[in-house]
C-alpha cells in the first residue's frame, strides 16, 4: 500500500517517548511539552471555548462518555471570568458598554454590560433574528417584551429597557450573579425537597405573570437563574413568541433550541392551544429534570425528541430515582399530561399541591397516570404525524439533518446481557460447566446496583444465536457478553468478549488459560473488567462480593452446577420428568454440601428444590417443608446477611406458608444485595397485588419485565395485573409479546382474546381462536373447557353449550373457571345454567339440586378461609338459582367476610363480584346495585364485557341504574 496519510513521513520524526517539558503554564500550572501546538498551554486553549456554544442542550448528555470536569475547573472557570472582567471592552451598543459574553442561546447572546448613563451593571440580551425577522415579528416582540417589563415580582428578572438597532432587538435586565439552573444541577444534583421547593416558588411566580396576562411559553432550566442565595429568578418571558408563525407549520427548530421541555401543543405548532397549561407543563418538565436528572423526553436529535414527547409517556420517575415518593410523582406527571385539560388548572394549583407535599399533607391530585394514559389526546390529534412530517421538511430546509429514526422508544443507553457461553470442550457433557461459568458471571454482575443485568431465563433462549444487535434491541440492553469455554483435563480456557450491541463493536476481549481450580478467579476478573468498561458505579461491598468464590471445592462446584441445570430444566418440563429432575437435583446438592459445608449457594438452591417439590404437590408434607427450612437455616448460619438466603426464605414463606407479610420483609432485605434479581420482583408483585397495593405491583412487574423480558410467567403476571386495572391496552401489548414468544400455544391467544371480551364485549376474537366448530373439536374441549363454555354460554348458544357439557361430563374437577381468578363452576351447576337458558325449568331444577348436594360436601371439606370462601360463593349461586333466598344471601355474605378485599384484593374482588350476582339472582335489586357500584370501580372488579354478556346479570337488565354502570365502563 502506498504511503498512507503520511504515516511514514510523520512518524519518522516522532518519537513518543522523547517529549520534553519546555515550561509550566502560569495560568493553570500544567506542564507544557514539546509537542504543544504553537507552544501554548493546550488545556487553557481548550478551556477558552467552554460554555460558548449555542447548541449545548441542558441535561442531555452522553451517559457513557461524559467525564465530570475536575473540581478545580470550577475555580479556574470563575478565574477566567474575573480576568475577562478586568480586561477590556468588547464593544458598545448605544448606552451600553459590552463587557463580557455570559451566555449564548438559540435566540441570541447575553452580555454583561455597563449602562453608562446610570453607571450600573446589567445583562443585555441581543436577539439575532436574521432571516426570521419581519416587521410583524419585531413589533410583536416589542409588545411582549414591554408587557413583560411591566411585571414586578421578586421571582421575575426585571426588564429595564427594550430597544432595537440595526435590525437586532435587545433588552436589558437585571444582572443576576449566580447561574442558570441547568448549569448548576449539572455539577451536582439537587436534593428532592429542594427541587420541590424551587418549583413551588417558580410556579407562584408564573401564576403572577398569568394573572397579568403574560404567558412565558419557554420554561426550561436555562431560563431559571439562581442567585447567590439560591432563590430562583425567571427570565425570557414570551420570547418564544418571537418566531411564532401564523400557519400551522411549526417554527424553526434551530431558534427554539431543545424541545425537551416543550409542551405537546407547542411542539405541533398549535399556537391557539398554547395557554397557561403550557407553562404548567414546562414547570413539570423542569421538576422532572430536577428529580430524576433527566428531562422527561430526550431523543438523540431534536426530531426524535419531539416524536417521543408526542407519542410516548415519560418514564416513571421512580425508575430513575427510587427515592421519589408516589405523591411527588403524581404531581410531576400531572403537569406532564399530554392533554392540557388534564394538567393542573393553574400554576397556583401546582404550587399549592407542592406546598402540601412539602408539609406532608395529602395532595389533591389523583393518581390517574396508570389507569388511563393520555392516548386520547393523541387520538384527537391525528394530524400530529402530518405535522411532524412538515416539521421534518422545514428542518431540512433550515439545515438540520433529520435522522431516519427506526424506533420510537427511548434509545437504549444501558444494561448488559450475559449470553450462554459456547462449550468448546471435546467432552460435550461439559456443557453444564460452560453454563455454570456464564451463570456465575451473570450472578456477580447482577449484584451491582448501577448495572441493569438481564435475567438468565431471558438470555438462555439465545443460545447459539449470533446477531448481537438484534439481541440488544430485543432485550433492551446496550452491551452483550459472549464467550466460549473449553475444559480439558485439569485446564480451562475461557474466551470472553464484551460487545456494544448498539454499534456491534467489540469493547473488550480477553482470553484466559488457567488451571481448572482458577475458574473462579477468571469469573471475577471478567466481571471486574466489565464493571470498569461500562464505567459502572460500584460500592465497596459490591466490590467484595464480586470477588467471592462460591466454593473452594471443585468437585462440589461440579455437583452444584449439574444440579442447577436440572432445576432449570424442571421449570420447563411437566409431570414426571419435572419431579425426577428435582429429586435428582436434591441428591446432587446434598452431596455438594457434604463435600463443602460452607457452600452457601448450594444450600439456597437446595431449599429452592425442596420448596418446588412441596408447592407443586409432589411431596406436600410437613417434612419436605422442614427440609427446606433446614437448608435455609444452614445458609443463614454461614452468612446472616446473605441476600440469597433471604430470598430463599422469602420463597419458602410464600410457597410454603402463604405468609405474604413476612415474605415481603425478606424480599426487601434480599433486594438490597440482589438488585437485578428478577425473581424478587416476580414474587413482590403478586404480594403487592394481593394486598391491594396495585401501583407497587405495577412497578414490580415493570422491573421484573425489564430484567427478564422473555420470561412468559413474568409477563403473564403483569398482564393479569394490568387487566385487573382495566388498562387493556397494556395487557394486550404484553399478551402480544407472550404470543410472539410462544406462537404455537393457543392458551395465550385465548387469554388475549378474553381481555378483548372484557374490554369491548366482543366475543369474536375468542371465537376466532377457538374456531367455528370448536364444539366439534374434542381436543379443544378437553384442554380449554372454561373458554369453550364461556363462549357458548355468553353467545347464548344452547347447542354449543350442550356439546361442551357432554364432552366434559367425565371430568371430575370443577372444570369451568368463571372469571379466570378463583371462583369456578361445577359441572352440575353449569348444566343447570344451560338448562335454564333453554327454558327447561325442570331440567334446571334437577341439575341445581344435584349441584347443591355436591357443593355442600365440598364446602365442608375446605381447609382454609380462601378455599372456603370460594366454594361458599358457588354454593350461594346455586341456592340463588334454586330460589333459596335467605341461604343464598347468608352464604354470599359469609364468603365476603372470609375473604374481604382487605385480605386479598385479587380474589376478594371475585367474591364481591359474585356476591353482587347472588343479590341480583335473588331479586334484591337495590342491594345488588349497591354492590355492583363498588365492584365496577375496584381493580379486578367487573368489566364492561362481563356485564354486557354474562346471562347471570339478566335480572338487572333494563334497570337504569344498572345500564348507567355498564355505560360507565364502556370503552371511550
Amino acid at each position, binding site marked *: 500500500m502506498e504511503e498512507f496519510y503520511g504515516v511514514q513521513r510523520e512518524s519518522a520524526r516522532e518519537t513518543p517517548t522523547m517529549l520534553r517539558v519546555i515550561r509550566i503554564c502560569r495560568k493553570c500550572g500544567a506542564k507544557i511539552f514539546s509537542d504543544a501546538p504553537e507552544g501554548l498551554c493546550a488545556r487553557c486553549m481548550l478551556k477558552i471555548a467552554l460554555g460558548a456554544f449555542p447548541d449545548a442542550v441542558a441535561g442531555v448528555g452522553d451517559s457513557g462518555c461524559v467525564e465530570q470536569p475536575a473540581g478545580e475547573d470550577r475555580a479556574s472557570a470563575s478565574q477566567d471570568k474575573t480576568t475577562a472582567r478586568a480586561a477590556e471592552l468588547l464593544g458598545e451598543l448605544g448606552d451600553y458598554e459590552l463587557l463580557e459574553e455570559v451566555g449564548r442561546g438559540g435566540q441570541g447572546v447575553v452580555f454583561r454590560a455597563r449602562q453608562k448613563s446610570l453607571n450600573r451593571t446589567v445583562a443585555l440580551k*441581543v436577539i439575532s433574528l436574521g432571516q426570521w425577522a419581519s416587521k410583524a415579528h419585531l413589533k410583536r416582540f416589542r409588545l411582549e417584551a414591554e408587557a413583560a417589563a411591566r411585571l414586578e415580582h421578586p421571582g421575575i428578572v426585571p426588564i429595564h429597557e427594550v430597544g432595537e438597532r440595526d435590525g437586532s432587538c435587545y433588552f436589558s435586565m437585571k444582572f443576576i450573579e449566580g447561574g442558570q439552573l441547568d448549569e448548576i444541577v449539572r455539577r451536582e444534583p439537587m436534593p428532592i425537597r429542594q427541587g420541590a421547593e424551587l418549583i413551588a416558588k417558580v410556579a407562584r411566580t408564573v401564576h403572577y405573570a398569568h394573572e397579568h396576562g403574560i404567558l412565558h411559553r419557554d420554561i426550561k432550566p436555562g431560563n431559571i437563574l439562581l442567585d447567590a442565595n439560591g432563590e430562583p429568578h425567571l427570565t425570557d418571558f414570551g420570547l418564544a413568541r418571537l418566531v411564532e408563525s401564523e400557519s400551522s407549520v411549526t417554527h424553526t427548530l434551530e431558534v427554539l433550541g431543545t424541545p425537551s421541555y416543550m409542551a405537546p401543543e407547542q411542539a405541533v405548532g398549535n399556537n391557539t392551544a398554547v395557554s397557561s397549561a403550557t407553562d404548567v407543563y414546562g414547570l413539570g418538565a423542569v421538576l422532572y429534570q430536577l428529580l430524576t436528572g433527566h428531562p422527561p423526553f430526550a431523543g438523540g436529535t431534536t426530531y426524535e425528541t419531539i416524536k417521543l414527547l408526542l407519542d410516548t409517556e415519560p418514564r416513571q420517575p421512580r425508575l430513575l430515582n427510587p427515592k421519589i415518593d408516589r405523591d411527588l410523582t403524581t404531581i410531576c406527571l400531572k403537569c406532564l399530561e399530554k392533554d392540557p385539560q388534564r394538567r393542573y388548572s393553574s400554576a397556583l394549583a401546582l404550587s399549592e399541591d407542592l406546598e402540601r407535599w412539602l408539609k406532608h399533607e395529602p395532595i389533591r391530585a389523583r393518581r390517574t397516570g396508570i389507569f388511563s394514559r393520555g392516548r386520547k389526546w393523541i387520538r384527537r390529534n391525528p394530524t400530529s404525524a402530518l405535522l411532524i412530517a412538515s416539521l421534518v421538511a422545514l428542518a431540512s430546509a433550515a439545515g438540520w439533518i433529520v435522522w431516519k429514526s427506526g424506533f420510537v422508544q427511548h434509545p437504549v443507553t444501558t444494561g448488559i446481557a450475559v449470553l450462554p457461553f459456547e462449550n468448546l470442550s471435546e467432552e460435550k457433557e461439559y456443557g453444564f460447566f460452560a453454563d455454570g461459568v456464564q451463570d456465575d458471571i451473570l450472578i456477580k454482575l447482577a449484584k451491582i446496583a448501577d448495572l441493569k443485568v438481564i435475567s438468565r431465563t431471558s438470555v438462555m433462549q439465545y443460545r447459539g444465536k449470533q446477531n448481537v444487535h438484534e439481541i440488544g434491541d430485543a432485550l433492551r440492553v446496550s452491551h452483550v457478553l459472549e464467550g466460549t469455554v473449553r475444559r480439558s483435563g485439569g485446564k480451562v480456557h475461557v474466551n470472553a468478549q464484551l460487545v456494544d450491541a448498539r454499534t456491534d463493536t467489540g469493547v473488550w476481549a480477553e482470553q484466559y488459560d488457567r488451571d481448572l481450580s482458577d475458574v473462579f478467579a477468571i469469573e471475577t476478573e471478567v466481571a471486574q473488567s466489565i464493571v470498569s468498561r461500562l464505567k459502572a458505579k460500584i460500592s465497596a461491598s459490591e466490590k467484595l462480593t464480586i470477588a467471592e468464590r462460591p466454593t473452594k471445592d471443585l468437585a462440589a462446584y461440579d455437583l452444584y452446577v449439574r444440579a442447577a441445570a436440572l432445576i432449570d430444566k424442571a421449570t420447563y418440563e411437566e409431570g414426571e420428568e419435572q419431579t425426577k429432575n428435582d429429586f435428582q437435583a436434591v441428591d446432587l446438592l446434598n452431596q455438594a454440601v457434604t463435600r463443602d459445608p460452607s457452600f452457601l449457594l448450594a444450600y439456597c438452591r437446595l431449599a429452592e428444590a425442596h420448596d418446588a417439590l412441596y408447592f407443586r404437590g409432589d411431596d406436600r408434607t410437613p417434612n419436605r417443608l422442614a427440609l427446606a427450612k433446614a437448608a435455609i437455616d444452614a445458609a443463614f448460619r454461614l452468612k446472616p446477611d446473605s441476600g440469597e438466603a433471604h430470598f430463599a426464605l422469602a420463597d419458602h414463606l410464600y410457597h410454603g406458608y402463604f405468609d405474604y407479610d413476612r415474605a415481603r420483609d425478606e424480599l426487601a432485605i434480599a433486594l438490597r444485595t440482589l438488585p437485578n434479581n428478577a425473581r424478587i420482583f416476580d414474587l413482590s408483585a403478586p404480594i403487592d397485588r394481593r394486598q391491594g397495593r396495585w401501583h407497587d405491583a405495577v412497578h414490580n412487574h415493570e422491573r421484573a419485565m425489564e430484567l427478564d423480558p422473555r420470561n412468559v410467567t413474568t409477563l403473564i403476571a403483569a398482564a393479569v395485573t394490568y387487566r385487573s386495572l382495566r388498562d387493556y391496552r397494556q395487557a394486550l401489548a404484553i399478551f402480544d409479546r407472550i404470543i410472539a414468544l410462544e406462537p404455537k400455544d393457543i392458551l395465550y391467544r385465548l387469554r388475549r382474546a378474553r381481555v378483548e371480551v372484557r374490554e369491548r364485549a366482543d366475543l369474536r376474537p375468542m371465537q376466532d381462536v377457538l374456531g367455528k366448530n370448536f364444539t366439534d373439536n374434542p381436543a379443544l374441549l378437553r384442554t380449554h373447557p372454561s373458554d369453550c363454555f364461556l363462549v357458548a354460554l355468553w353467545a347464548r348458544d344452547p347447542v354449543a353449550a350442550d356439546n361442551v357439557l357432554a364432552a366434559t361430563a367425565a371430568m371430575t374437577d370443577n372444570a369451568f373457571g368463571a372469571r379466570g381468578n378463583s371462583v369456578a363452576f361445577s359441572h352440575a351447576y353449569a348444566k343447570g345454567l344451560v338448562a335454564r337458558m333453554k327454558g327447561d325449568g325442570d331440567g334446571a331444577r334437577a341439575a341445581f339440586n344435584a349441584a347443591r348436594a355436591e357443593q355442600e360436601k365440598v364446602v365442608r371439606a375446605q381447609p382454609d378461609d380462601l378455599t372456603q370462601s370460594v366454594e361458599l360463593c358457588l354454593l350461594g349461586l346455586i341456592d340463588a338459582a334454586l330460589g333459596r333466598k335467605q341461604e343464598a344471601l347468608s352464604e354470599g355474605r359469609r364468603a365476603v367476610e372470609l375473604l374481604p378485599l382487605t385480605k386479598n384484593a385479587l380474589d376478594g374482588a371475585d367474591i364481591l363480584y359474585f356476591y353482587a350476582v347472588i343479590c341480583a339472582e335473588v331479586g334484591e335489586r337495590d342491594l345488588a346495585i349497591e354492590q355492583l357500584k363498588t365492584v365496577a370501580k375496584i381493580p379486578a372488579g367487573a368489566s364492561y364485557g362481563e356485564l354486557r354478556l354474562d346471562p347471570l346479570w339478566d335480572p338487572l337488565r333494563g334497570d337504569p341504574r344498572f345500564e348507567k354502570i355498564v355505560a360507565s365502563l364502556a370503552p371511550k
Partner: protein
Amino acid sequence: MSADDKVSSLTALVGSAQHGAVAFTTTHWSVVLEAQGESPAAHEALEKLCRTYWRPIYAFLRRQGFRREEAEDITQGFFAQLLGRRSLSAVRKEKGRLRSYLLGALKYFLADEQRRAMAIKRGKGQRLIPLEDLRADERIEMEPANPVTAEMIYERRWALTVLEHVLSRLKDEYCAAGNAALFDSLKQLLPDEPGAPSQAETAAQLGMTENALRQAFYRFRQRYQSLLREEIAHTVATPGDIEDELRHLIAVLEA
C-alpha cells in the same frame, strides 16, 4: 472616539449563532453516520476524518509496545480495513463519537488479528495453542512501561490533534489575508496567561490603536472558538454532544 471604536454591526458579535448551526449539516461524522457508510459522500467524509485522526491511533499502538514499523503497518491495515468495508452497518447514530468508535474498532481489530494469528498456528485437527506456548517475542507486550496507559496516550493525542488542526486552520486564514504577524501576536493573548504581553503592549508593537486591537482580538477569539466548535462537531453525532466532548478533551489533558 473614532468610528472603528464602535462595533459597526451587531451581527459581527452575534452572527456566529447561525453560522455554527448551518455548519452542522455537513460535519463529517454526522454524514458518515447518516449514510451508515454506504455512500460516496460518507466514504469521503470518513477518509477526511482518518487523515486528521490517525495520529492518536498510531500513538496508542506505540504505547502498546509495537515497534515503529509494526505500528505503521497496523495503522495502515486498520484504516484500510475501515475504509474498505462496504458499509459501516454496525455503526449506529446514537451517542456515537468518532474518538471512541475508532479506539473500539482498533481494539477489535487487534483482537481479530490475534485470533487470526493464532488460528494460523493451529494445525489441522489440533487443539488451539494456548497463549503461553507462543514464543516470547511473538507475544504482544500488554503491560505499559509506566502508569500512563496506552488509552490515556490515545486520548491525549486526540485532544492535541484537535487543537493543532484548529490552530493550523486559523493560521492559514490569517496568513492568506496577509496577517501572519497579527496571528502570531494574537495567539499569545488567547489563553490569557499572566506574564503574556498586554493588549496595550501588543497594540503598540503592531502599530494599532488599543481599541482596534481589542476588536481584532475579539474577532480572532470568536473565529477560534467557531473553528474549534466546528472541528469537534466533525467528530460527534449531535450538537448536544459538542460541549461534553470538549469537557472530555480538557479533562484528559489534566494528567
